[in-house]
């Protein structure tokens, strides 16, 4: 009997634990953030813009398009001295618990990026909600505009931007990779650039005058020196950056047709690899960059028969030349104009010359600007599709 009383008393102690569900969050009580944008306002404050999903509208929103249907997301913003402060002001406008775990993108406005990412990223790394895998991007303009755009194919523009970066057509960087680049002295960060563009119209029955929608578009990369945005690379130069960084996974190279130089031939890239070999003799610093690329010829405008070994060889050398020129262009810009090592040459140097690195690392960008770089490209064309010569080539 006394034992039972004792157990009862001990059980009573467990009442203190009954509130154990106090961190629970029902899905109907949270505001799921799909995309986050941070701007630096004219009066020197941080403006946090979030795109909140409206799950109820997710079902039909996609295909109905612009036919008077409510967009499945709500964009709302607030200002503050820090992100957290802005988030608290945001909480005064959002009648639910703000949930960061599904934020796909973190986009900075141009002014914010120029001011420095140090004021932004810490919140997102320190909190347990936002993921380290958020896509990090900078817009030429205001981040708010990016989140306010519409998306035809994805449910929300934040998801659309996330999918765009995932397609690996431009340079994609997650917030943790940005932090890693920032923490290393051997590379300066580059971040996906985005902008708002009017894209195609939605078409369908009953749409006499479809409005022209604004959508997110990838546009080059933003070049940082430490945590501040300094310059941009356009799409063309971005390809060169990707070649030097060894990040080319998709894309095409277009070269003049060997026999008819005014007509073009396109080669689609299958795979590529880049190897950076630094050389240092205590005074002179130079880099040998070896780019290896394989591709398939997918289109020719010329009428000549390219299905001959010597023509393929000629194509390969033209392709190598084109890639080299692209890479050299980006390199030139980084070395001479911007003076920042955005390719990670410093990291490569560190891996090979760990002692010398200790002397050079604090003035690496100058050393990099002075360094000679030899780019060598080895290109291979493997497939030519289903045709040998043009299907419409007339009989000789």
């Amino acid at each position, binding site marked *: 009997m*006394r*034992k039972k*009383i*004792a*157990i009862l*008393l*001990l059980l*009573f*102690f467990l*009442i*203190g634990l009954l509130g154990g569900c106090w961190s629970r969050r029902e899905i109907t009580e949270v505001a799921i953030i799909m995309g986050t944008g941070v701007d630096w306002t004219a009066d020197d404050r941080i403006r946090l813009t979030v795109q909140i999903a409206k799950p109820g509208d997710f079902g039909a929103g996609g295909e109905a398009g612009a036919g008077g249907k409510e967009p499945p997301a709500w964009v709302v913003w607030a200002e503050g001295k820090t992100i957290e402060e802005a988030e608290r002001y945001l909480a005064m406008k959002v009648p639910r618990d703000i949930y960061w775990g599904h934020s796909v993108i973190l986009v900075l406005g141009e002014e914010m990026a120029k001011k420095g990412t140090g004021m932004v990223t810490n919140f997102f790394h320190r909190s347990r909600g936002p993921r380290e895998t958020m896509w990090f991007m900078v817009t030429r303009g205001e981040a708010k505009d990016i989140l306010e755009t519409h998306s035809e194919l994805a449910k929300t523009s934040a998801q659309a931007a996330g999918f765009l970066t995932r397609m690996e057509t431009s340079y994609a960087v997650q917030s943790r990779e940005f932090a890693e680049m920032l923490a290393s002295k051997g590379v300066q960060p580059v971040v996906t650039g985005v902008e708002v563009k009017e894209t195609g119209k939605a078409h369908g029955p009953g749409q006499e005058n479809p409005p022209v929608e604004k959508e997110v578009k990838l546009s080059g990369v933003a070049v940082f020196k430490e945590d501040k945005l300094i310059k941009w690379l356009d799409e063309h130069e971005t390809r060169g950056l990707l070649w030097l960084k060894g990040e080319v996974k998709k894309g095409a190279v277009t070269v003049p047709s060997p026999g008819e130089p005014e007509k073009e031939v396109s080669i689609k890239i299958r795979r590529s690899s880049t190897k950076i070999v630094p050389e240092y003799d205590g005074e002179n610093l130079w880099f040998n960059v070896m780019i290896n690329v394989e591709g398939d010829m997918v289109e020719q405008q010329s009428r000549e028969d390219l299905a001959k070994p010597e023509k393929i060889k000629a194509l390969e050398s033209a392709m190598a030349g084109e890639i080299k020129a692209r890479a050299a262009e980006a390199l030139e810009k980084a070395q001479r104009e911007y003076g920042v090592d955005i390719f990670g040459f410093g990291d490569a140097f560190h891996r090979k010359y760990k002692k010398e690195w200790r002397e050079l690392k604090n003035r690496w960008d100058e050393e990099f600007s002075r360094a000679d770089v030899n780019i060598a490209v080895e290109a291979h064309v493997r497939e030519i599709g289903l045709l040998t010569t043009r299907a419409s080539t007339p009989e000789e």
Partner: protein
Amino acid sequence: MIVLLIMAFIGIVLFEAPGLIKKKMWRELAAFSLYLSIGMALSIPQVLGITLPNPTKAIEALVKPISELLK
């Protein structure tokens, strides 16, 4: 909070002590009481908001030369 804690202690005593007394395990009962009073001495002040000295600080000072070496 303090009420809950004291109830927990009463519960613990009622749970263990009668059995020990019945089996005449006096030595065990003494050890039990000793440990329980140490537990009470450590927990009740904390619940009441009295700051106890932290022995870790003393150990920290003691091993300081070594931990400096490891830095």
